[in-house]
């Protein structure tokens, strides 16, 4: 009984009592994982901070990291992961540096023949495993966010809405048209119609590589939405090959006006406004 009650916080006590030795050993093991690309000072500082946060949860089960007691540790590790990634280290290297503490603790306790302590060390190892994986996960998530941001920016850059006449807007589409892209285009165009008070929109698909049934459907939805708002939408830039594909696929453009070129579409829009473009009798100005 006495031995057991003594063993209750044996691991935590051991960790606390041997903090400096452990941190030094941990730093040494971790730095070999980084092969000298990280200064010992930096590593030691990180290790010391992490160690301090680990102490209160050293005997906790690492199976559920969502519980509140781990939140400080997790944010520390996320920060660490981000920082190391910025310095060019791989997530494996960062995770390995966390795992390295396991070896340090095992070295410290292998001489002890206490089954209770042994169990606690095993649990602690499990916790470090979970935390090492967590750094990997947060690295992944950070990368995904960067990629998402970049693709959103790319989307913005490649879908400009241009005013080509009073009351006439044009959107030149380039590249591939997927569902996400088309929705962004639709929303931007419709917002622009309201903001500029334009009643005509021209979607130019000269730069679109392929038109299939899905693309046609998206274009159709945009036109219908514009009509619901009180504006007319034309599709221009139908290349001969595209025209053949559309007919072959049996895609019906219904009553959407389509034109070969942006110029044709502009003339059409102007005419419906009652505007004709005429050449002056006195010819050019210069």
């Amino acid at each position: 009984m006495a031995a057991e009650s003594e063993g209750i916080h044996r691991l935590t006590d051991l960790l606390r009592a041997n903090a400096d030795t452990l941190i030094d050993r941990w730093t040494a093991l971790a730095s070999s994982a980084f092969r000298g690309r990280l200064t010992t000072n930096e590593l030691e500082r990180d290790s010391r901070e992490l160690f301090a946060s680990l102490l209160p949860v050293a005997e906790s089960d690492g199976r559920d990291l969502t519980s509140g007691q781990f939140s400080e540790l997790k944010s520390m590790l996320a920060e660490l992961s981000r920082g190391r990634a910025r310095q060019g280290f791989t997530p494996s290297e960062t995770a390995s540096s966390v795992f390295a503490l396991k070896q340090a603790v095992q070295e410290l306790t292998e001489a002890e023949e206490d089954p209770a302590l042994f169990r606690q060390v095993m649990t602690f190892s499990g916790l470090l495993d979970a935390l090492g994986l967590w750094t990997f996960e947060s690295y992944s998530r950070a990368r995904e966010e960067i990629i998402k941001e970049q693709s959103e920016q790319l989307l913005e850059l490649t879908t400009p809405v241009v005013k080509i006449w009073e009351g006439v807007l044009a959107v030149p589409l380039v590249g591939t048209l997927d569902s996400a892209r088309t929705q962004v285009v639709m929303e931007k165009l419709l917002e622009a119609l309201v903001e500029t008070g334009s009643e005509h929109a021209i979607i130019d698909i000269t730069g679109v590589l392929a038109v299939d049934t899905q693309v046609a459907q998206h274009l159709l939805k945009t036109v219908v939405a514009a009509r619901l708002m009180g504006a007319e939408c034309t599709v221009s830039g139908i290349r001969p090959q595209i025209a053949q594909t559309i007919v072959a696929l049996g895609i019906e453009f219904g009553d959407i006006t389509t034109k070969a070129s942006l110029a044709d579409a502009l003339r059409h829009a102007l005419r419906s406004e009652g505007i004709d473009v005429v050449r002056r009798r006195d010819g050019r100005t210069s």
Partner: protein
Amino acid sequence: MERVPILKIGDVLLVSIQIDLQDQGVLALQEDLAERISTTGAYGVIIDISAVDIVDSFIGRMFATIASISKLFDADTVVVGMRPAVAITLVELGLTLGDVRTALDLDRGMKILRVLGKQRRGSFAVTDDFAAEEVL
């Protein structure tokens, strides 16, 4: 329950929907409009939905109903100010507004009604008098 006010601008009735219309409100509006169109002899109805952020099938049917009622009194209906998000949702929903005409804003809506009104009732029947009075 608040009733939606109906404004008379010249010979056109203007309804501006500002609140989240419940089903009872919709029925009340339809009744009120029917009454006002018949008494005033208006040649057009404008429904301004620039403040409306949700149009579901029920509201959509209301527009169609109002358009049908107006037609019986020889008047046209235009819905103006539809928000892009609403338009996109209606398209996805598969809801078509049928005979209901739409315009970007009040000005254009009035223009359309004047043109249609002249077609229906002859040029002299449609004036450009814009003195607005509240009718309800």
